């Protein structure tokens, strides 16, 4: 289990954040996800097996841009 911080661009409303949260939570291996519109960051708890590409996909399918991944 790892904590991952995401930098996300393109959000401008509350439902944006909630969409990305929902999409991330649907990704297998992701246990929890919260996205903050205020800091433009996402906070994810995920299995070690979750790859960058999967995170990328989860964000981009909702129409936003993942610009940074920071693994603890």
């Amino acid at each position, binding site marked *: 289990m790892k904590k991952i*911080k995401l930098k996300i*661009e*393109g959000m*401008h*409303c*509350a*439902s*944006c*954040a*909630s*969409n990305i*949260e*929902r*999409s991330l939570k649907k990704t297998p291996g992701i246990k929890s996800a*919260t996205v*903050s*519109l*205020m*800091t*433009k*960051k*996402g*906070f994810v708890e995920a299995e070690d097996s979750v790859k*960058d590409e999967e995170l*990328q996909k989860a964000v981009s*399918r*909702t*129409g936003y*841009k*993942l*610009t*940074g*991944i*920071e*693994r*603890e």
Partner: protein
Amino acid sequence: MHDMKNMDEHHHDEPMEDSEISSWKKKMKWSWILAIPIAIIMLSERIFGFMILPEAYSSWILLAMAFPVVFIFGWETIKGGTRGFVSLYFNMDSLIALGTIIAWLTGIFSQFGIVADYSGVAAMIMAFFITGKYVEAIARGRASQEIKKLLELGAKNARVLKGKEEIEIPISEIKIGDVMIVKPGEKIPTDGIVVKGFSSVDESMITGESLPTDKNVKDSVIGATINQDGILYVKATKVGRDTFLAHIIDLVENAQGTKVPIQELADKITGIFVPTILIISIIVFMNWFYFTSDLSRSLGIAISVLVIACPCALGLATPTALMVGSGMGAKRGILIRKGEAIQTMKEIKIVMFDKTGTITKGKPEVRKIKTAKSVKENYLLEIAASIEKNSEHPIARAIVEKANLKKYKEVTGFKILRGKGVEGYIGKKMVLIGNPLLMKERKISLKEFEETVESFENSGCTTMIVSYGNEVLGIIGVADAIKEDSLAAISMLQVQGYRTMMITGDNERTARTIAKEAGISEVIANVLPEDKAKKVEEMQKEGMVAFVGDGINDAPALKQSNVGIAMGSGTDIAIESGDIVLVKGSLVGVVQAINLSKKTFGKIKQNLFWAFAYNTIAIPLAVAGLLHPVIAEIAMALSSITVVTNANLLRRARI
């Protein structure tokens, strides 16, 4: 440890809000250049019946003028919104996109007399929407201004000693062990230890402490604090992401990733809000059309419903207030780690304080010494210090400091007896240093000293009995003075109606003396470190407990309590435990943290109330056909602006 990947280097260091604000601003300017004439034409034609444009072309010209507003300046909204219909991840752009596209299309169909022309309205909606987003982005930026200041706080360059030369290098190139030269008025580039020089340092930006702190050789300094009057030579001990400032920023940012329980309902609604509104607007349209057969009016009402509904007020209510609150805290050295803490705080009835380092300074000093007959004080101290030199415990350090030996006796078999004392061998005989309990356990007679122990304890000293080969050499009384503002802070809490308690490993008598000085009447003494959490649990049967202690030894108790408040020592923060972390070691921070939490939570409740009220009033009004689409859009923009602005008003609260 950290591994940051930037897929988009180009945007990395640019403050996000600023780029968002400037992009909305540009779109806003352009859209009004067209939307204002459109508004004038529409108003004069429809209200005053005065045709500015030739009647035959008027609607075509409006349609053409509205096009760029909706589809060029509003392109990102249209694009983002329509994508929602493909991916089924709807956001509020979807509502605006659908509303404006339908409205604009009526301009074409109106040419054939099918429906009234709403194309001008489409431009107005988009222009107001963009304006609303611009103002909201500014307000959101203001909400995070303290955090932004923290981000910009770090020094850019450092002057480093290379051999005998001073060279200036960017902050990112400093390595641990480098010696930095900091002149008066300059920022200390990164965390380190003073190796030469003496000065006072302004640490207010980090700790909230307004008075400058004196720094001498061997003192730790924090990066980004400002050197006041002397030249300091500082050896870097932490760089990059490991610095104190980086930790604070991390902590404040991560708090935004935690939820305040009260927002749960709002979050749930936000999640299904847009699709629900889409469905409602279709139903509303069909109903109105079925009952009135008036296509134009039915469409107008459906558009009103689409654009009046805004999940933002609901979704922003909590995070904006939390952001402002945690920013206000950060400025004062109060770091809110978990959003939940500010909600729980209002239920707290009991505030439990750890003694050492929390109520007291945590720097015990040897106050009293009583030796056995025929034993010299120097000898007692020599034996005691030689043993205690192996321990990191503050009491041990106090004894070592007092003895101030040049040469220590050789010690073997040193062992720490947690919560009791230490043991070790000097020569073949065993030395035991510890509390009366330990002596009793080891069957060492204290008879001769019973009175001394009692009098030491009554004066607030912790007694350390030194025995050598089963014989007591003497007693050392160590006392830890209470912090200057502990009494004031605790009495403030009592005035506010909190039950205050002190918990400590000290014996009852010593503990009572200290507690009395701090103004606390309830004391739980003789508690082993590992039992503190259990005591907290017991107290929780009587009410919600906030535990105040240092983040390292008291971690389990902090965790067990309903709100854990971890005290920093000024140069180190215990990030791993505590719901709230106080950077500065003053108990006044506890009072402030409690006030700040209550005020922030109050603001969240207020915001949520307005957001719910807005949606439950505005949507039915639109459904009932009482609001023109443009009015609906203005109301929507105002709702989210109000919430964010209201959050910003939290700054007026006195903490």
